[in-house]
């Protein structure tokens, strides 16, 4: 059983508290993606789980065993580093067999497991090379291979694909997904790349300055962000926000523009809110709110517009090659179910009162 439970975990470096009370339960075989802006503490959390850093307070349980105070080697976790950390003076074979050799496994067993992992990752012809003689993608595979030969309770990945080019990243993403389906181990995966998080994870955990903002299935988070931060963080280009007051089922901005209120306005008359709509939720219409097109960016299949509405820039993503010219007026609307309202002060999601 390889579950993981974190209870009120805190970590300070000197005076600054970096992790401010993390609670997280990860089920057996689950793939959890940790996302959040740079510096929010993702790596720190991962390093605490690995035992590379000691928690200031809180509890960490892996596979039912309290490991809060145990050194890394007694936790049975494997970690894939962003820079791979392959030992430059060892061949691929010795790199991959390193942990087994440390544990005193027999030569034949090491050889068998390394060959097995190399087969899975397509590294069989590279086993006698040194890391310096490999391409970025191959190094990444070796780093992954070094983790899987151990068959650990828990896999930790810290932005493993961020050093690869876009194309290779997509390919390796698919490989990691296949690997997870095949091995079925519990994995925790830190990434900056939302698409990576959305496609790989069973569950996404969004962090922000040392706290968990929201966790849940990728599409749930996308469709129902618990606060403006999560709404703005997930999705690219990110969600548009415009401040206004709820008045008569609509959101009225300071300069008097009227935006559709959506499903959540009920019972909140007069409240100051952040009106949120994803760029792809906004569609041209004959009736609705209007704005001035400022920039037109065709991206191939889509067209991205920058429209000024109520004095604020609004990004609109059109799923077609709509002809549009800067300086033109455009009328748009958003389907009520795709409008998000957040409290203007603390950013939490507003739902309709019955």
């Amino acid at each position: 059983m390889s579950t993981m439970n974190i209870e009120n975990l805190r970590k300070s470096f000197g005076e600054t508290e970096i992790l401010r009370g993390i609670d997280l339960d990860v089920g057996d075989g689950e793939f959890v993606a940790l996302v959040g802006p740079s510096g929010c503490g993702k790596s720190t959390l991962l390093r605490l789980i690995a035992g590379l850093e000691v928690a200031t307070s809180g509890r960490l349980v892996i596979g039912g065993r309290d490991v809060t105070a145990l050194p890394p080697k007694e936790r049975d976790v494997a970690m894939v580093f962003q820079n791979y950390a392959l030992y430059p003076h060892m061949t691929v074979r010795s790199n991959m067999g390193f942990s087994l050799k440390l544990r005193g496994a027999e030569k034949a067993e090491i050889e068998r497991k390394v060959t097995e992992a190399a087969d899975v990752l397509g590294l069989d012809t590279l086993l006698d090379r040194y890391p310096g003689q490999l391409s970025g993608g191959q190094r990444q595979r070796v780093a992954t291979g070094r983790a899987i030969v151990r068959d650990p309770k828990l896999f930790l990945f810290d932005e493993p694909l961020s050093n690869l080019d876009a194309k290779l990243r997509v390919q390796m993403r698919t490989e990691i997904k296949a690997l997870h389906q095949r091995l079925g181990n519990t994995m925790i995966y830190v990434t900056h790349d939302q698409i990576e998080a959305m496609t790989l994870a069973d569950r996404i955990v969004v962090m922000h300055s040392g706290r968990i903002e929201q966790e849940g299935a990728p599409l749930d988070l996308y469709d129902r962000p618990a606060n403006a931060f999560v709404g703005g963080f997930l999705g690219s280009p990110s969600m548009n926000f415009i401040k206004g007051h709820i008045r008569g089922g609509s959101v009225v901005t300071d300069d008097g523009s009227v935006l559709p209120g959506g499903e959540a306005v009920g019972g909140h008359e007069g409240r100051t809110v952040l009106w949120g709509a994803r760029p792809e939720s906004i569609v041209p219409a004959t009736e609705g709110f209007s704005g001035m097109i400022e920039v037109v960016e065709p991206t191939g299949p889509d067209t991205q517009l920058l429209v000024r509405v109520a004095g604020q820039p609004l990004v609109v993503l059109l799923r077609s090659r709509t002809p549009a010219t800067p300086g033109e007026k455009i009328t748009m609307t958003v389907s009520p179910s795709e409008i998000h309202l957040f409290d203007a002060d603390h950013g939490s999601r507003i739902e309709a009162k019955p």
Partner: protein
Amino acid sequence: MEAQFKNPHALMLRYGLLSILAFIVVCPLAWLALASLRPQSEIFQPVSEFGWSTFFPSRLTFDNYRALWASDFPLAVKNSTFVAVTTVIFGIVVNALAGFAFAAFDFRGKNLLFLLVIASFMMPFEAIVLPLYVMIRAFGWANSYQALIVPEIANGMVIFLFRQFFASIPRDFYEAARVDGASWLYIFTRIAMPLSWPTIATSGLMLFLSQWDSFFWPVVAASNPDYAVVQVAIARNINFEQSDWGGLFASTNLAILLGTIPFLLVQRFYVRTLISGGIK
């Protein structure tokens, strides 16, 4: 830069100056080497009228070397070699461990301690000779190999070099190994040390040369002829009444030649680390 290389006059000037410099550096050494091959009587004879014969002896002889072989100089070479090699072996282990601790661990008083290490190699040796001698005497080590070796093992400069190198190894290496279950000693011997051979070469050389060239401390700590080292043996050729110039030149020459052997062996690494400041 480019233009400078293309201009033939600048190039000529450059190589002209370099040649003069090289000549100035090599000249006394060449004179020393050739003088050691002269018969005793002829050594200073041609110096006053500077010319061809200032450098080139009329007759080559190995008499000076033969005499040296019969003296206690071979014992001094043996002593020096033993002392220097032992210092290198222990010195690398001890100083690398210390450097590793400074690079990899956080502990209380680390910065102060490191400052002391740096101060230790800024301090002139003469300043600590007396207290050191008192200590060695108290240990009962006067006139022994320990007296010559032990004080030279820990070396602030070498600790500094190792610390710089180990700190330049990405922490990820250490951490990956720790997650994989390695102890710190294992990480030190299997990951940190194998990566640091340029620093090992440099440090080994520094330790070797400092022992090979040491004179003052051996005179103080081990005056017994049984423990005479090379520099001490060379100095014995000089005294107030009359100096054995032939023996002096021959022994100096040998000391230089033997001292360059380790340098030639590891020269490739040595140059590289000094240039790159110990990184990779």
